[in-house]
């Protein structure tokens, strides 16, 4: 189910910044490429970006559900949701559908109040992992993981983070038929979020 549409994403921590990189391919039935501009990464507030890897329809439905929950939280509590609470909420949401799940494996990139990065990912039924360095998800999981292990260094500034994320993603998706066809990188810093689209191999 997770391979029907194809996806690749990385979240990486830097020094007082966090970055997320994702491909943009939408495939059908593991065969055709239908779109090269399919959005899988969503900025939910100033300090949280979520990347949803997996079945396209569930990516979109979950994105709407998350926006719904974030909005209600903001209205009720009169404050922004923290990345940690968001991650816990997302895990809870996914587990609610334990026996009829969303086929989505999310990655969360967040910046805490104190500027420290927050990273987590989970499987499609909400088993969370948090890391200090990076997390990956997608059809080329192994390739992404290998690239990150090789290229990652701690305490990168936002420019180095951007370079590393781009190189890791590009190299990994080039070894996977189901992901690629475009890439985007977002870096969250205390000053704001910087988004860049990468020119990549369109095959």
């Amino acid at each position, binding site marked *: 189910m997770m391979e029907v549409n194809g996806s690749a994403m990385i979240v990486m921590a830097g020094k007082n910044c966090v970055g997320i990189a994702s491909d943009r391919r939408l495939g059908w039935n593991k065969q055709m490429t239908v779109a090269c501009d399919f959005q899988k990464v969503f900025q939910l507030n100033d300090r949280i970006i979520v990347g949803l890897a997996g079945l396209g329809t569930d990516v979109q439905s979950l994105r709407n559900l998350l926006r719904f929950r974030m909005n209600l939280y903001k209205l*009720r*509590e009169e*404050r922004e949701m*923290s990345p*940690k*609470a968001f*991650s*816990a*909420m997302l895990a*809870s949401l996914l587990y609610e559908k334990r026996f009829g799940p969303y086929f989505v494996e999310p990655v969360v990139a967040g910046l805490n109040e104190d500027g420290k990065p927050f990273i987590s990912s989970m499987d499609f039924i909400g088993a969370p992992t948090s890391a200090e360095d990076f997390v990956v998800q997608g059809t080329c999981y192994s390739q992404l993981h290998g690239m990150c292990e090789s290229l990652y260094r701690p305490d990168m500034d936002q420019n180095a983070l951007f370079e590393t994320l781009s190189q890791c993603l590009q190299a990994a998706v080039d070894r996977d038929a189901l992901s690629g066809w475009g890439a985007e990188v977002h870096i969250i810093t205390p000053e704001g979020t910087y988004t860049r689209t990468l020119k990549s191999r369109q095959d």
Partner: protein
Amino acid sequence: MGDNFFNFSLTTFNRSGRLLQIEYALNAVRNGKLSVGIRATDGVVIVTEKKMPSVLFDSKDVTKIEPITSSCGMVFAGLMADFRVLVRRSRKTAQTYKLTYGENQPIRELVKGTARVVQEYTQSGGVRPFGVSVLAAGYDDDGPHLYQIDPSGVYIQWKATAIGKGDANAKSDLERRATAGISFDDMTLDDAIHHALQTLRTGVEGEMTRSNIQVAVVDSTRKFRVLSEEEVQDFLDEAR
């Protein structure tokens, strides 16, 4: 809400637009023992009279103050049994929040949730309003808070307040302190405890002892706790 045989509300408007059942519930609250709450800059204190009708009661077991989460607790004036229902519901709501978000629910949200339950019982079929006013004391990311929830479902944040029998006198006493220059905006928790006990005394017949009053605090450590009888005795002694 248990077995609901009635489809119609028992709380209905009278001609002048009042909900008499809620007003009667407030009467029940006014019959209850006095409880006082004060919010300081670094915490909140709630005190209540815990008078036992007979010496045969084992007073150690009786508690009028209940923790809802690790950082929030409630005291009441009115019907203890109704209070226990609200405590149970609030605890469940708070834990559900914690299960979903991994953090303690902010006090205002907790109070809103409890107030919603109270309001539902003024409009649902076959039930009567809760015969309690509740004081909720808690400490969250926004600091210390003291809230009151009325039988109507209204919730109000206070710097200092009193509920139960003699509440008007007690509130006048608190207001007198405020106009005499004691600032509730600028008070330490220790001072607040002393003021609360002095205000409580205005409504308690006879002597206040460690076993006929209950004191609870939540301070900047965010741990809500009911003081032991020894600690209460210390505060009573200091006041002498």
